[in-house]
Every structure is written in C-alpha cells, then in structure tokens.
C-alpha cells in the first residue's frame, strides 16, 4: 500500500500540447527529408581519405618558413582591412542605431531602419564581397566595403538595443530643466551609451579580423588570396604557415580587445 501521495500532475492546456506535437512532426519531416535525399557518397569519401591522408596531414604540421615574409605582409593587410572596415561601420552604425531605436524616433522610421538593418545583416560577408569585387575590382577596397556593410548591419542592431535600454528618467529630467534636443543628446544619451558602443565596436573588430582573413578567397584582398592560391597549388606547407599566422594574430587581438573592453565597461 502506498503511504505517500504524489503531487498532482500539472495539467497542460490542449493548445500547448497540439503545438508541441506539431513542432515534433515538423522536425521529424525535416529529418526524414534530409536523410532520404542527401547525396553523401561515404564510400568514395573514405577512398579519398585513405589516398590523401598522408599527402595532406603531415604537411599541415610542417610550415614552410621561407614564405613567412610574404605571409606577414598579407597578414598586415588583413588587419588593416578589418580595422578600416570596422571603423567605417562603427561611424555609420551610430545614426542607423539611433534611427532604429524605438525611444528616439517616431515608429515608422524605427521600423524601416530595423528592416533595413536586418536585410543588410542577412547577406553573408562573402556574398557582399563578391558583389563589391565586381563593382570596384579585386583589391582590398572591396573587402573593406564588404566588412563595412556587414558590420554596419550587426552594430546598428546592437546599438539600437543599447539605446532602447538606457535610463529614460535622466533624459526626462534634463528635458524638464529646459534642455533642447541637442543638449539632451550630448548630456543625457551619449554618456550612457558610449562605453558600450565602443566595447561592441572593439568586439566587432575581433570578428572582422576572422572574416577579413577569408574574404580574399573571392578576390577581395588580404591573406585569403594566399589561402586560395595555396589550395589550388595543393601547397599544404604554405597553408600550414598561413593557418599558424591566422591563429597567432587572432589570439593576440582577442587578448588585447578583451583587455580594453574590461577597462571600458
């Protein structure tokens, strides 16, 4: 005989149950579609793996040091590309962020700005780079433009969220003291948001270093061009040196940026 009473089971509303069942069905349908129609030829891949393993892997761990001058040169270009792109994006993102923030403008403007930002964001950087390479030619400027546009979308969204989360009581009290709109902006809004703006811009620089190192694959300057040539020539020793350079630079910049961000906020 039971000498304890279990707590009553939670009653779940019918609507929620139906919703859960629908989601599960949806996921099952997607997985069956994927498994039935995916074209992965495992046998052939394994054959290739056996054939290529000894050609590729050992060479990936023995960098070709004689090319380091060239690699360093391109790596500097990569860093500079990321820096200029992030700089322009940060400046462009501030007005867009203000336009998209709900508490700064009228509703239609904020909606349009939000749509614009999310449309810009959904283009992968490499696709943007393809467009800009066609527009301005295969050089670092195309890469800078691609980074600028993509980071502008990301930063604009983050900035609008920061602006929406500021303390509006300070703004109201400044207004009540008779400040005009410019004074409200400079003494009420900006002091609250600038540290976070800068912190996000520096964080974005970290991400942009990573993306600018691959933009060269479509011809937009930086170390990506060398990656492309090395892969076409199947020069895995050089690839190993490039990988090493990317890893070192990204690590150093991550460390510097997290140090600065800690001091900022």
């Amino acid at each position, binding site marked *: 005989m039971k000498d304890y009473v279990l707590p009553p089971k939670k009653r779940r509303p019918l609507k929620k149950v139906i919703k859960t069942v629908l989601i599960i069905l949806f996921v099952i349908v997607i997985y069956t579609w994927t498994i039935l129609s995916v074209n992965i030829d495992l046998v052939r*891949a394994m054959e290739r793996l056996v054939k290529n393993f000894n050609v590729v*892997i050992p060479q990936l761990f023995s960098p070709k040091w004689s090319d380091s001058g060239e690699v360093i040169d391109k790596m500097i270009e990569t860093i*500079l590309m990321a*820096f200029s792109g992030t700089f322009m994006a940060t400046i462009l993102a501030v007005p867009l962020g203000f336009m998209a923030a709900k508490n700064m403008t009228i509703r239609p403007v904020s909606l349009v700005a939000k749509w614009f930002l999310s449309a810009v964001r959904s283009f992968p950087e490499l696709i943007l780079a*393809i*467009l800009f390479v066609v527009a301005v030619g295969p050089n670092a400027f195309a890469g800078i433009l691609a980074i600028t546009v993509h980071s502008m979308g990301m930063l604009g969204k983050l900035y609008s969220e920061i602006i929406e989360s500021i303390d509006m009581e300070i703004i109201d009290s400044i207004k009540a003291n008779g400040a005009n709109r410019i004074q409200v902006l400079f003494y009420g809004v900006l002091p609250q948001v600038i540290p976070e703006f800068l912190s996000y811009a520096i964080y974005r620089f970290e991400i942009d270093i990573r993306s600018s190192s691959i933009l060269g694959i479509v011809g937009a300057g930086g170390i990506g061009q060398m990656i492309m040539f090395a892969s076409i020539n199947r020069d895995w020793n050089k690839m190993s040196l*490039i990988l090493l350079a990317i890893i070192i630079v990204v*690590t150093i910049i991550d460390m510097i940026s997290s140090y600065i961000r800690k001091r900022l906020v």
Partner: protein
Amino acid sequence: VLRRVRKQHKTKVPALYEQKVKIQVTMITFLIIGFYLFSMYWTQEQTPGNFKNALFNLTNLFQKFFPPNFRILSSVWKPMADTIQMAIISTTIAALLTIPLALLGSRNITPFKPIYFIARASLNLIRLIPEMVLAIVFVGIFGVGVISGVIALIIFSLGVLSKLISETIESVNMNSLEAIRASGGGLLQVIFFGLFPQVLPQITSFILYVFEVNVRASVVLGLVGAGGIGLMLERELKFYNYPNVMAIIIVIFVVVIGIEYMSNKLREALL
C-alpha cells in the same frame, strides 16, 4: 589667496570630465583616426587604377547585375536543398558530440581537472580557425562534395556550441545538484535529473542559433568546393554570368531570411 580660489570655484561650473581624461580621449581619437587613414592608404596602394575608377565602377554594378535572370530558378533548388541539408546534418552531429564535450569542459561537472583543461584548450584552438579554411583543408582531403562541407561545419560548430553550453553549465544553480548527490545519486543521475532540466531550454536555443550560423556558412562554403549552392555560385562567377549570380544571391537571401524566421518561431515555441 584662499578667498580668490573659492571665488573662482563659485563662478566656474565644474567640467563634466577631468582635464586628464579629456586629453587622453582626444589623443586616442586622433590615434585611431590616424591609424584608419594609414590603413586606407596602405590597402589602396596596390589598387589597380585609382579610387575614382573604383567609384565609377560602382555605378556599373547595377548594369552588370540587373535584371537578374530568374530562368535558372528550377536548377537552383537542388543545390539549395543540399546546402540546407548540410547545415541540418552538421548541426545535429555537432549537437550530439558537443554535450559530453561540454560536460567535460565545465568546471563544476567534470570528474577530472586535467580533462577540463585539455578540453578547453583544444576547443579554443578549434574556434580560432575560420570555417572556410577548415573547408579548404577538408576539400583537399575528401575531394569536392557535400561531405567536406559537413565535416568542416561539424568541427566549427563543435567549437562554438561547446563553449556556449559549458558556460551555461558553469552558471547553473548547484543546490539541486548537491541535493541529488546527497541523497545518493551518482554522477549520471546528477547530470540527468539535476543538470539537464535546468539547462535544456538554453541548449536548444543555442543549437538553433548555431543552425542559423551554419546555414549562412554552408551557403558560402561551396565557393571553395564544399558542396551546395556556393558551388553553383562559383561556376556562374567564373563565367562572368552576373545576371545568374544575382538570381542565386536573391534566392540565398530569401532562404536565409525564411530559415531565420522559422528558427525564431521555433525558439519562441520551445522557451
């Protein structure tokens, strides 16, 4: 003298920031702008033609790309499906692999401390390599096809997911875990009954997030031969067939936005 100082203080409104801070901020601003000008100069040096030409070409862009050629739509769907399937498979496998890894890589759960450091260090190293470079290496090993992309994406998302998940696990409320341990539960029971109920919503949300990232990544992985729509994009680019390129880009845009919308709805329903 004292009186004069006091008088000055009365009339002068104190500045919002100190003099020293002002000088510092000005210096840093000039430094950043100077570095920007320098980097623009450095990167523009090798530009064939000059800056004016580049801007002129920008107006040509529209003539080259528009109108997009939508007649190729029927042949776009198959590679697009490949792309989405790549993202689904790699996210699933990465999610299955990442949970044990994240458990080993979080300080409050891991049974042995050395494993924690090894897991953390190796996952950090993985995260440093861009997924495109991983894809190039795997295309070199496995040849052109979907499988190279899938493996590159698995490794890339392992790095991201296990970091996010192990951070969530470390921030969990330890009291209920202690309670289960105190009433005689083993490590597995602690994990299943104490930990998972607390972190499952966040984990699903992270997995959906990584899925979105993977969709975007798998779109472009094909540019280096790792299967999917990127492969087709690369071919059309090589033929300078810009109206077709534009049509493919528009399809990518629509599909990416659609998937993001669906995944947002799914996340709202689950949380």
